[in-house]
């Protein structure tokens, strides 16, 4: 198993007026390919902050972060974009698709931005994987919420990232959709992808190989997590 993400002593402090918000206050963790990890914790515990850091959308205040063996601390914005394009697929609470485009066109976007030669087969294959075979050319605004999120997953996968990072991907969906999506994540992990999910969804978290409890910006043992208090 190859380490995809390795973080040690990662801190992220925000300045809010005179007050320093220690959103993350020294976090160590790692995730390898073929592994599915969940990060759980109450609202405001720092989950989103951590997701943003490891997906290189933000830089830590201090600490070390390695993506696919590369130390990215101190990387410039354009270097971070490259790292992101090569290694990271990201999905959000909401699908955030471009509503004027079809499912397929949305999945094409990362290709366009990365200036890679468009590979139609890869796009079809990813749409098949997420279960949208035959609905490639549908305008995404005609899709159900769950299917939109599947398009978003296909979009996150299309450049063959090493890790899929998902910030509360099921929070807005029905139980049926959640179960389907949990299955999809497991399937992706079986194919060798690392999947890292921030979630409140205990079923989803429970199906992960590992659960990390976050509280007030630090990782705590399961027993101390207020989630079970």
């Amino acid at each position, binding site marked *: 198993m190859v380490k995809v993400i390795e973080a040690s002593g990662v801190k992220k402090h925000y300045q809010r007026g005179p007050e320093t918000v220690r959103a993350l206050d020294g976090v160590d963790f790692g995730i390898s390919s073929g592994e599915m990890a969940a990060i759980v914790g109450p609202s405001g515990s720092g989950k989103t902050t951590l997701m943003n850091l490891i997906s290189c959308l933000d830089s830590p205040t201090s600490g070390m972060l390695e993506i696919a063996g590369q130390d990215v601390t101190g990387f410039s914005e354009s270097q971070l974009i490259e790292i992101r394009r090569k290694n990271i697929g990201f999905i*959000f609470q909401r699908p*955030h698709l*471009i*509503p*004027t485009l079809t499912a397929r*066109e949305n999945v094409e976007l990362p290709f366009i*931005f990365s200036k890679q030669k468009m590979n139609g087969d890869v796009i079809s294959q990813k749409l098949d994987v997420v279960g949208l075979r035959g609905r490639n050319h549908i305008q995404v605004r005609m899709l159900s919420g769950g299917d939109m999120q599947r398009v978003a997953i296909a979009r996150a996968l299309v450049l063959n990232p090493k890790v899929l990072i998902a910030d509360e991907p099921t929070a807005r969906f029905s139980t049926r959709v959640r179960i389907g999506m949990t299955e999809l994540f497991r399937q992706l992990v079986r194919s060798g992808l690392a999947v890292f999910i921030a979630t409140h969804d205990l079923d989803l978290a429970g199906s992960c190989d590992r659960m990390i409890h976050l509280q007030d910006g630090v990782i705590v043992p399961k027993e101390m997590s207020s989630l079970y208090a």
Partner: protein
Amino acid sequence: MKLLMIAFKNLKRRKLRSLFTIGGVAIAVAVLVSLLGFSAGYKKALTNDIDKMGYQVLVTAKGCPYEAATLMLKGGGGLRYMEQDVYNGIVSDERIDKATPQLIHTVYDPDRLDGRGGFALYVGIMKSHLELKPWTKFKSGKWFTKDDADEVIMGFEAAELEQRSVGDKIFIPGIEKILTVVGIFERTGTQDDGVIFLPLKSAQQLFDLKDKISGIGIKLKNIEELGQFEEDMYEVPGTQVISMAQVKGTFLNLVSSAKVLVTSVAIIAVFVAAIGVVNTILMSVFERTQEIGVMKAIGASKLDIFRLIWMETILVCTLGGIAGNIGALLGGSIVERVVKGLLPYAPEGQIVLITPTALLTSLIGAIILGLVAGIYPAYRASSMRPIEAIRSGE
């Protein structure tokens, strides 16, 4: 699929708003096309009108300017003479389109006006006379057979007064010569109607005014050069210049006020359109804050976002430009009518001349408008930070 396609599809998202913005640009462009067309057409039509007026400058022998002016307005000239060399000297001037010399002479005829007596006006002319007074038409007969023929052409009233028709003979009192009437002009409504015309050379011989002329009628190639030309003419000794000040003043006023009108309206139209475009695109950028954040999160660079928004702006302006061109072509006749109603002096003929140059200039102008108007919204979009953009709606 390319960035351009995404940009285009974005415009379709808010169809009505996009249409209004495109419409705004289209109106500005149509105004621009019409104004450019007006600028070209108006000057051409005015020039045409002025062409029809014949000569614009009269160079005469020095004398009382008022007397000379009066005589000129009546179609005559001063009774002072200058050397024909002056004519030979100035006809080669580059700025002159046409020039014609004339020799005016009056003869007292005791039989005139039913025996009460009066002056008959004789004018020696060259064939260029007809070009400088283009309204002069033959009622009957034709031009003199020779440069020094003993022939006359009579003005309409002169012929009626003397009861002459083509082929008849005429006798000038005090000059022992019999002349043949070879032509009669139609009525022109000017002093020329009472004149008896002779070939210039014949007039110089008959009246014993060898190598003398009274004046030169001059028409310039470009009326805008009139001022400078006039000044230069003052340098020629023994002459004075009388220009159709009215013509000159009016023309220059009309053209320059048209230019001011055109420029100010065009600036306003373009400015309003630009504000509309910037406003629309900015609005759509802010509405799509999250979307832009997500695009960055999935690998779009600042430059990608800048180009996308810039393209949208250019697209709006280009579509507006095309629509404006079509509108100007279709609505040209309406504009023509409106403009004619607004002008203090509307020349004959088409005054809004929609040229390919005007169309192309305006289209390029619209694209440049897009290039410029797009910079700020594109910059704003490209500098959005992805996490904040995405968070803004969660």
